[in-house]
């Protein structure tokens, strides 16, 4: 079993990011889409931490805190909006949201 290098962490981060991106594009439930976006944000965090360790620089690690806080704020707002929709209608898929088009 070889020792994991910075590159292996970066590859994992890239894979997580791709999984998240594909999920946002393929899935139609806003909640799942939002979870996939969270996955992308965490891929970014992993990438920042791995690079910060490789560069022995503290900046990359401090960015992760900003990303975490912002992601938490986004969860609050996003779930708020999704709950507001659920109160007005029973089911929830992105395809149902077609009041506006043209």
């Amino acid at each position: 079993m070889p020792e994991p290098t910075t590159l292996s962490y970066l590859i994992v981060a890239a894979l997580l990011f791709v999984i998240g991106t594909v999920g946002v594009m393929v899935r139609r439930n806003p909640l799942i889409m939002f979870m996939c976006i969270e996955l992308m944000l965490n891929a970014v965090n992993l990438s920042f931490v791995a690079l910060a360790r490789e560069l022995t620089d503290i900046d990359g690690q401090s960015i992760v805190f900003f990303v975490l806080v912002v992601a938490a704020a986004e969860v609050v707002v996003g779930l708020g909006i999704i709950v507001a929709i659920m109160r007005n209608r029973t089911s929830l898929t992105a395809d149902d949201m077609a009041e506006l088009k043209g």
Partner: protein
Amino acid sequence: MSLVASSAAAWTAPVIDYHALAPEIVLAVGLSVVLLVDLFTAERNKWLLSVLTGFTLLGATLPVLTLAIHDDSVRSLFEGRYVVDEFSLVMKGLFLLAGYVIVLLSSAYVEEGDYWRGEYWFLLLTSLLGMVMMSSSRDLVSVFVALEFLSIPAYMLAAWRKRDLRSNEAGVKYFLLGVFASAVMLYGMSLLYGVANSTLLVDIGESIDLDGDFAAVQALAVVFVVVGFAFKVSAVPFHTWAPDTYEGAPTPVTAFLSVASKAAGFIALVVVLLTAFPAGRDVWQPFVWVLSALTMTIGNVFALRQTNLVRMIAYSSVSQGGFVLMPLAVAGGAAGDAALRAVVVYLVVYAATNLGMFGVILAVSRKTRSSDIASLGGLFSYAPALGVLLTIFLASLAGIPPLGGWIGKFAAFQALLTDATPWAYVLAVIGAVNSVIAFGYYGNVMREVWMRPVPHGDNTPIVTPSSLQIALGITAVATLVLGILPGVVLHFGDIANLVGAFGG
């Protein structure tokens, strides 16, 4: 652990230039006051909040003016991570004044609609604070934080009428695509950080080298960051959220999103492209070129088909974004500062005109309760002032001299022609063709206003609240003055040299 400990030992408190931060401090104090006053006022006194919000914005404009007059040296805070230069002062002034006009536009709408008033003003101020911060941000962290600061309240504002499905839909679409764009942009930023070993945009600008070892990673990072901002400024093909969000959101919020939020996206794009990626020009110039051509053309083609006025304005605003991108496609070449100047001029003029446009839509929809283009029929016969104003704003958006929109288009084309490369000429031709196409749908609305009969023969006059009248007055005067005395706005462009752009 040792990494953390050694950094902690070297830490000293940064020197803070409070004068340079004064606009942000005024806004931060003002929005806290608005939130507190909202808690302790009775329902009938809630009108106080709109007044407080207006004064906060005007109060924050004062330090911007004193900073502009005081001296013309650049104030750089936190080792260059937060810079107050002429470019940022011009944009701060634009955001604060546009914010003031939006307060005037929304006060009647919010008062009459039985909405959650206190929070509305609080969120509006928070988003504006993010925009003001964005104009000074020169670091990956501050750009990211400012971007989220201005976006997250905007998601809530879009979903404001929470019992209305269309507003919910507007909010959720804006939210999902906005957060997705942030994630894509952040991934690009993480790659940039890895390449440059710094989060400072200027440092990144120095370490990008497309002939070096990590050329592919760098190119990918540049593309990711540009895509993230392309969502924000609703550039085609990343525009799909814009028409739905604009139509479903409350109309004053639509005005806010299409003017202030969009301008903030463009500023971030300009700052990042010019200070962090000057060496990556070969990657982003063709990319921005394609975005610009697509945005102008697709926005226009869809606008032609719309029967809903707000939706038409949404597509027209997408297409106007293409004209802002146009000078950016040649930025850094022979056009030099002309490209930056064109972007600033276009944003200023577009803000004045589009806010006025939404002012007229708000005033008319108070009577017609509809946003169909057909509901404007015969507007001139029963509301001549609104009819004339609407015509002025439409003509300015179409770029007819001597109105403001013309000088914006002129500056953009001038930048392209200064660059004088074949690709710049091709883009100029595409822009010119699109300006002509745009006459199609702007002219269609004008025909309704001047020539068509009034629907149902309903000739009752429109009562416009005084706040809306003031907003219409400000925007109409701005649109006319900017067109007749272009020197005023071109002067803004002249002083708006971006510090650190192209290593300068």
